């Protein structure tokens, strides 16, 4: 499957899992616009240090928007929006892969009600097994592991599908070409 088909499949499955997805050009200005729109009028925005996206892409955003990059406990537990990057995506399942390490993505993608994740579309693979293949054999295993995130948190225990349980109720994926 060629790359553009993979990206199309990813967008479809991610949306079916309950995420919103947008594709943008890889530039600081365009990323700024997207992030601002996605944050809308939320306060208390926390963000993890980018590891997989070139940090220069965030320069406008960080200059203009009040974002906390090293939140303390109070900021972490009261934040409304968390922004992280992802090291990979999976087309078959509509998943983004967040690494678990000292950059706090594990918390920032979990505690706030809205999670915005930025992913380079070239890092989307086809199936979950490809993540294991690539990230174990070629790159060193992410120090403590990673999480496949496929849509916002959800439950069917209350009689119908409800999105937003203990994890975020909104997941927004920004795909950089």
């Amino acid at each position, binding site marked *: 499957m060629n790359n553009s088909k993979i990206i199309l499949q990813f967008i479809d*499955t991610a949306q079916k*899992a309950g995420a919103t997805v947008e594709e943008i050009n890889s530039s600081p200005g365009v990323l700024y616009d997207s992030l601002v729109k996605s944050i809308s009028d939320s306060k208390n925005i926390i963000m993890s240090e980018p590891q997989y996206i070139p940090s220069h892409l965030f320069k406008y955003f960080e200059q203009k928007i009040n974002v906390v990059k090293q939140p303390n*406990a109070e900021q*972490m*537990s009261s934040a409304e929006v968390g922004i992280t990057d992802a090291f990979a995506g*999976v087309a*078959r*399942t*509509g*998943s983004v892969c967040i690494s*678990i*390490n*000292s950059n*706090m993505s*594990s*918390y920032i993608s*979990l505690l706030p009600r809205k999670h915005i994740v930025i992913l380079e579309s070239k890092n989307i693979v086809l*199936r*979950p*097994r490809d*993540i*294991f*293949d690539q990230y*174990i054999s070629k790159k060193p*295993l992410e*120090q*403590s*592991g*990673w*999480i*496949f*995130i*496929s*849509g*916002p*948190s*959800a*439950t*069917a*225990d*209350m*009689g*119908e*599908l*409800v999105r*937003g*349980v*203990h*994890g*975020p109720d909104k997941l927004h994926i920004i795909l950089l070409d």
Partner: protein
Amino acid sequence: MINPREVANKSNPENLHKAIKMSLDIESEAVKRNVQTFNLNHYSAIGKIEDYDLLKDHARKLKEYSIENLPELLAKLESSIKLNGGHFYLAKDAKDACDYILKICLLYKAELVVKGKSITSEEIKLNHVLEAGGIEVAETDLAEFILQYSGEQPSHIVGPAIHQSRERISKLFKEKFNPGIPLETGEELTKFARTKLREKFLTADIGITGANFIAADTGSIALVESEGNIRLCYTLPPVHVALAGIEKVLPSINDFGTFLELLAPSGTGQPLTSYTSIIRPPLSLPLYPFNKKKNNKREFYLVLIDNGRMKMRNDPILHEALYCIRCGACLNACANFQSVGGHAFGGETYSGGIGGAWETGTGKLENARFSELCTGCSRCVPQCPVKIDIPWLNEILHQRLNEKEKLKYSFIFKGLLPKDNLNEKANLQKLFLGNFYHFAKWGSRFPAISNKMQRNRPVRILLEKFLGLSRERMLPAFTNKTLVKHYQKLGLSLLKKSDTGRKVLLFADIYTNYLYPARGIAAIKVFNDLGINLTLGEVIPDGRAALSQGLIVAASKRAQLIVQYLNQWIEKGYDIVVIEPSVLAMFRRDYKHFIKDEELFIKIKNHSYEPFEYLKKLLIEENINPNQIFDIKKLSDHKLFYHSHCQQKTIGAADQTIELLQKLGFNVITSQVECCGMAGSFGYKKDFYEVSMRDAEDLFKQIQTAGDKDNILVLAGGISCKDQISEMGYDVIHPLELLAKILVS
């Protein structure tokens, strides 16, 4: 109202009966709705996996290897966990595990523990021990949160509270919490639980999770969820305890890929659940002082439990249950489970088709009495991602339970039974039903008397008292002329010159022969017109009836005789055609357990056909246009409703009927149910009559929607299905009878 906990211990048969009644009255609607949704979603999810069969084969092999080499893998895992800086403990039983975890709590002076969903923790009854030790346990999985307040045990391996409707949950929350805010919709209930539990996550001292898969090479764990509570449990508190059965261990983290691609699609029908965490604890991730206590370093404890699993591993039958990855697919595909859920079709902890083996292995055999709700319909079999033969597990449990029965009157009865029952121990009902053919021989010699007797009310009441056959159910009538007798009359006049050179042995199954010869006659007519040299075989019991009643020895003996018999015909160049699908399924599936010679089993399997399966092969290979043999215009009505027999579907022999009928120009509506619920003798038993009729409701509705008795023709291949559908007053014929009616000649 009965709380399910009161009837959780079903070693007492009265409890099973009460639990079934309670489930049918209160829980059935919610269970059916939720479980049928999972089942439907499952089909569309696995339809998207192009290498599904290969994936299952691979998963099966990985599990066989892992369980075979479990001691070595456990040793490897221990050193990996310790190398990572974690603690490893292998508890021998429930008490050992609970005591150890309590010790951890006391060591860290824990006041509050947050828990993710862990059926294993239910198995060992962990919460009781921790709470008795003065520790607050907050269940954070919504279903477990609900159960914590309702005081019930789980009713499903994956969705423990699917028996609860939203209305009941709303009522429960209002009672327990007195919230002062509206709690009606799913969203309101969920938001309430989120707010209540968020505080617990932030202040908890210890987080306890299960583990879906464990890798021996890296000491990694896979954790699968959708709510986010498990992530919170392992991320926020300084101490993480993961509790799992030893069977969860796999050789390598690379193996996770295969299982994760199967688990969610099989269980809930999602490609992946919202969060699948692949962690290698203790995490090198800073702690946050949310609870204002001292910011300790992270600690990780892996607590594995044996609790009967090593014994299961050594048991020739139960060890297959250790391959289970707890997806719940077998629960969702089961018509009986759909009707009653895990509070009836389940024990103290485990439920559904796979539940009996687990309750036996981790508890005792008597707790698996609910496995009687497994009818052997086999709809769970193609859905199991690790290809466990669930019906076989339950059939052996039935045998083992039979051996523990207190027998009344059976000794009188024994003299009336065929000799291959000499070593069987079972109650009157099972001995009767398992040897049905033997009584059918006599019943059919005096059909007028036997039919009149079984319709006589006092006789029906006696049959109910002594044989447990429900008086509500009309017993099938014996024909006054068996198929064999018909054939002897027809035989010579029908034989044409064989155009195709093909030779078919029509197996004279006992159901067609004694109860329903019309479909056999139809087969003879149709095959004859197609130029096939057809011979009717001898009437020999195939063992299905015995197997269904747990009479394994008798079933095995019958299988040996049949296989020899069939082999003789195959050697002479005959193909075997079998009309009754439950008998064909014996030859193609169940016999593998009885025939030691694998090549012989495969030979029988490859030469046995369902009639339409054979016709399809014939039409293609001989290049015959079916419209030259059959003329649809001979019937005025072309609207058909076709119900596929459960076991027939599983062996891949159902679609051919639909294909041919459609090719001939019929408008075919097909049933969308897993099983009609009659399942041989199951629906006749007084203990299960109501479940059987509840199972049939969906099918009846679908037939009624398709048409009235006068404007739709209902077709079914299995005799059980015909009997069940007849309960709604529609006529049912075998598709072969339809073909015979429209033969051109």
